[in-house]
């Protein structure tokens, strides 16, 4: 049955929406990432206006992250204190990001900047993760123990305003988590992503948090940042489609539950390897979109300026 989306102003089949939601929700539960970097391009590719796709994905991320966060919380692997610190930065970043997006739209470079940022970030992060996880997988196969990542020291430990994060077994400055929150808030507003693909690696490689705690903590943080984004987008752009959100979420929350179960059966380094491959694939696809000759060098938007 086709349903009509009142804000996107188009008809789509509800099963397709349900399927897209479920697939992305599965990955979300499995990796502790929101999956927005997959869902937003997927929706745009399907023909949903980019503005609506970005804004509505945020609400989908809220739901699938809540469902995932609760599942992780039952396993007692959420660092509430760390999440709280990052949310403070995240809300500030979201407010700034919505303004930045308005500015980019006015000069007509929003698509380019967003795509280019995607390619850069996903490329770097995917590459780093791929290298690290391949080494870890090889080490496990050969039976050589890898020193746990969080025991090594780096520049983060030299910063002031230290705070103790018991759940993560860390005593570090609050500045890196806040900065991370700000970055994620900006990305959420501009790209319709929860930022999990940045938060998860950053928590592992920069903050040196234990991998087990990272999933639940990033999910909790994503819940709050994407909820803020949803409200800000609907206030400033009227671009949240609740009907679209409903079907994506319905698929998403179910998918997320199965993702979490799958994750508990897989090894950490294998999960990271898989995520690295997906991240790199999306980066390559977006890069192709920037360099390939477009079928029409003109692009048309409604509404004058």
């Amino acid at each position, binding site marked *: *049955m086709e349903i009509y989306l009142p804000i996107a102003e*188009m008809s789509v089949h509800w099963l397709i929406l349900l399927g897209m939601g479920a697939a992305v929700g599965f990955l979300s539960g499995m990796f502790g990432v929101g999956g927005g970097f997959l869902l937003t391009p997927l929706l745009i590719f399907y023909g949903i206006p980019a503005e609506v796709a970005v804004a509505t994905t945020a609400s989908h991320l809220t739901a699938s992250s809540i469902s995932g966060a609760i599942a992780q919380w039952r396993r007692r692997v959420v660092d509430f204190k760390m999440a709280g610190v990052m949310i403070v930065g995240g809300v500030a970043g979201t407010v700034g990001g919505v303004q930045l997006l308005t500015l980019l739209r006015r000069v007509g470079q929003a698509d380019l900047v967003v795509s280019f940022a995607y390619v850069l970030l996903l490329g770097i992060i995917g590459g780093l993760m791929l290298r690290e996880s391949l080494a870890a997988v090889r080490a496990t196969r050969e039976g050589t123990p890898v020193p746990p990542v969080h025991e090594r020291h780096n520049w983060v430990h030299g910063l002031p305003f230290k705070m103790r994060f018991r759940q993560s077994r860390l005593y570090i400055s609050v500045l890196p988590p806040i900065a991370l929150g700000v970055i994620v808030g900006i990305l959420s507003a501009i790209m319709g992503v929860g930022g999990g693909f940045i938060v998860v690696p950053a928590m592992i490689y920069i903050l040196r948090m234990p991998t087990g705690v990272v999933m639940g903590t990033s999910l909790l943080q994503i819940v709050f940042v994407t909820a803020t984004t949803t409200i800000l987008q609907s*206030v400033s752009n009227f671009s949240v489609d*609740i009907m679209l*959100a409903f079907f994506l979420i319905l698929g998403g*929350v179910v998918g997320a*539950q199965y993702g979490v179960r799958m994750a508990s059966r897989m090894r950490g380094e294998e999960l990271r390897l898989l995520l690295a491959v997906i991240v790199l694939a999306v980066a390559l696809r977006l890069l192709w979109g920037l360099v390939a000759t477009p079928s029409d060098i003109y692009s048309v938007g*409604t509404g004058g300026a």
Partner: protein
Amino acid sequence: MRAMLAGALCLLAAMPVRAEDLVSGLSQDQVQITSNYAGTDIVVFGAIESTDTNASAGQRDVVVVVRGPDADFMVRRKVRVAGLWINRDKTTLYGLPGYYYAASTRPLPEIASADTLKRYQLGLNALQPKSASTRQPAKAEPFRLAAIRSRARARLYAEAPHGVEFLGYSLFRVRVPVPAAVPRGQYNVEVYLFRDGNVISAQTTPLYIEQIGLERRIFHLAHDLPFEYGFVTVLMAGLLGWGSSLLFRRSA
């Protein structure tokens, strides 16, 4: 609709008698967009009333144009810079229809001169914006063509050179496709009767495309109470997420 047809007939009756005249109507004067709306067809039908029995059928033509509410289009042109395609030039076209469909008995250039087609804005070639952000017509032209191309790809602009179907000598019918993604608002259905390249009769009928029911309420809520709307969306997302984890905990 019957009332409108009757009104049109009265109007025709009051007009001075001409050799040929036009009566037309729509299968429906309102399209309601509901939750399972997936596009529809509207049938425009009409008849040519002829008092001149000697008039031959060969020289007359009917053109039916359906025009959606005007919108502004911002068209950007990409150029390649260091391997990347980047938006460079832009032109805003003000007042192009959001939807346009032109059906005729023959290809439009065979029916009338380019000037006539341009005057009545018949056919995609003749479609012009009310104004553009650039004053030079030559500069605006590629952007106008790009906007028309883009709308045609979305099936919102179309031409049907043989779309007017004659059922007998004077009755005609046109099937107008209304795709799922049409803009809402007031449309105008224009019917033109041509003889030897000149418009001898024309009629305009309004057509309303509106959202109704839940969709309409959602649309208005999103625009009138955006904060509450966003909050409700977040609440729905939260409840669905929480509910599913409760459900799965029990079944697990």
